[in-house]
């Protein structure tokens, strides 16, 4: 609004917005908090809320079972419970992260996620940049139809092609002396996820490229620049921001993809989505370890996502909302 909002009005909106935002963020915050608890603290009733780091503050470690003050609630901050030792405190520990890493070979899943998301993004960009470039700068009558058709492949439900893909994946290719299957291999998932995200990548690049003024290219052509020079010296510098945003979004989408990664992996190529899904049948106490594993799986992408939020609109609405 052009007119200055009254401070009271502003304060009210601020309070409401922050309350709602914190509510929405709460499950994530709670997961991160729980990942630093012992399994016993993780299921303490009432919940323990305030981490104590190290033993330097002189307070004895608090056992969750002893915390029995019903007055504590989710809003009880440090002040609320400071006077009741054993109230909302727990001793922060990195034990869960160590255990998850050691017991489940977490690094391998992480590496698979990086390879699959990174590989599919790289491959997708390599295929999509020339296509988007030509559609943006050398449009023909059919450009629009091609773009819409590409979009339509994105709308194909995965179950519509599930078995054929599974069949291709489990086909025994004669290789050397034995046979070789594509299922549960990283390259296969790289290709599948690349194909899934390719329409979005082409579209997003196309909307960025279209904003590059054509006159600049014409001027370069007039000056006798070859097609290669045009691409390398004129187009690329102007296209880099758009490509970077596209890479970011594609990486995020591939990282979080959870239909093909669950159905086409078993052990060797399983990424973090499958690793987390293995926690769906709990054994004993596992809240803290689940939290640690979850935190590790989402933290990198959460940070990337914060950078990509503006581009998300463009990428996921196919340029239809600006």
């Amino acid at each position, binding site marked *: 609004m052009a007119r200055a909002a009254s401070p009271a009005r502003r304060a009210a909106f601020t309070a409401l917005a922050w309350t709602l935002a914190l509510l929405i963020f709460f499950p994530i915050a709670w997961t991160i908090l729980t990942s630093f608890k012992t399994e016993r603290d993780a299921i303490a009733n009432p919940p323990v809320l305030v981490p104590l780091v190290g033993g330097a503050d002189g307070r004895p470690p608090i056992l969750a079972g002893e915390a029995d003050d019903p007055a504590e609630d989710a809003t009880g901050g440090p002040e609320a419970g400071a006077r009741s030792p054993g109230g909302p405190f727990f001793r922060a520990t990195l034990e869960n992260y160590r255990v998850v890493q050691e017991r489940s070979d977490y690094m391998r899943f992480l590496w698979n996620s990086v390879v699959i998301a990174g590989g599919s993004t790289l491959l997708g960009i390599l295929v999509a940049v020339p296509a988007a470039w030509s559609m943006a*700068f050398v449009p023909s009558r059919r450009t629009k139809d091609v773009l819409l058709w590409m979009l339509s492949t994105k*709308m194909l439900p995965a179950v519509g092609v599930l078995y054929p893909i599974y069949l291709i994946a489990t086909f025994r290719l004669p290789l050397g002396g034995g046979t070789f299957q594509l299922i549960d291999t990283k390259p296969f998932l790289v290709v599948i996820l690349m194909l899934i995200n390719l329409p979005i990548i082409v579209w997003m690049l196309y909307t960025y490229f279209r904003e590059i003024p054509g006159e600049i290219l014409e001027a370069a052509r007039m000056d006798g620049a070859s097609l290669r020079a045009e691409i390398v010296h004129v187009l690329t510098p102007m296209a880099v921001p758009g490509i970077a945003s596209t890479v970011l979004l594609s990486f995020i989408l591939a990282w979080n993809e959870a239909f093909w990664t669950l159905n086409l992996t078993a052990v060797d190529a399983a990424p973090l989505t499958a690793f987390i899904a293995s926690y769906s049948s709990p054994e004993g106490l596992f809240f803290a370890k689940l939290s640690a594993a979850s935190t590790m799986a989402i933290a990198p992408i959460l940070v990337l996502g914060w950078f990509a939020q503006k581009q998300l609109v463009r990428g996921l609405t196919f340029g239809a909302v600006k």
Partner: protein
Amino acid sequence: MATKASRTAARLMMAPAVTLLLGWMLVPLVMTLYFSFADYRPLRNVFEPWAGFGNYERFVTSSAFWPSVWTTLVLVGAVLAITVVLGILLAMLLDQPIWGRGAVRILVISPFFVMPTVSALVWKNMMLDPVNGVFSHVARLLGAQPYDFLTQAPLPSIVLIVSWQWLPFATLILLTAVQSLDREQLEAAEMDGAPPLARFRYLVLPHLARAITIVILIQTIFLLSIFAEIFVTTGGSFGTRTLTYLVFQRVLEAQNVGLGSAGGILAVLLANVVAIFLMRIVGRNLDA
């Protein structure tokens, strides 16, 4: 104007993307179509290349089919209603002058970046668990009985989880649209004494109509294929089996490929109805 040489170059540059997507779409889809007319059960070594419309008939008349269609519609409809209504309200709120808007935005958008298996498991265990979940802690605090969400109300629980994941998307897109509102028009209406509700009804809502449509269409496409959230919470039991999940069970769990493929083709047809509307809007926008 582009020269003939650059035209040829342009075609060549498009070729890989077009070929790949054509292969990706056509080959498996034709295979699914083919299997859907065959009696194909690999575990029993049954392969009868032509079974007519038997698979379609059996899929549609099976006792699981209509409940799965119903579950799909309820899931998609409820999530759409929740995310669009709350998304509009949140977008309007975030458009107000508030302190720390950037930080609020980041908090609100975050659930969208959480991978589906994580959000489903975190909600199932940390939030909705009848003994140790946060909801049951709050219930006890308020003197109420903890509620076993995923057993007592499995579908609403999944609706809740999926809505949490998609509310950020709706909010972000609607916020982008709200921010392009004509402020002067809005102020003029305010000067003329139009009450807030009327301003919302006659100025804001029409302006958002297009963005709302886009949100609905895109979310529908993604929601029709919801998988991981069901896979790790209920495994499709307790009336949470959607059409997608039913096909998954027929094809991969029961390995009745013919039957499942018929279901897959039906799912494709269902998605196409939505897709056609979305493509029209996007296509119109391309001309502008």
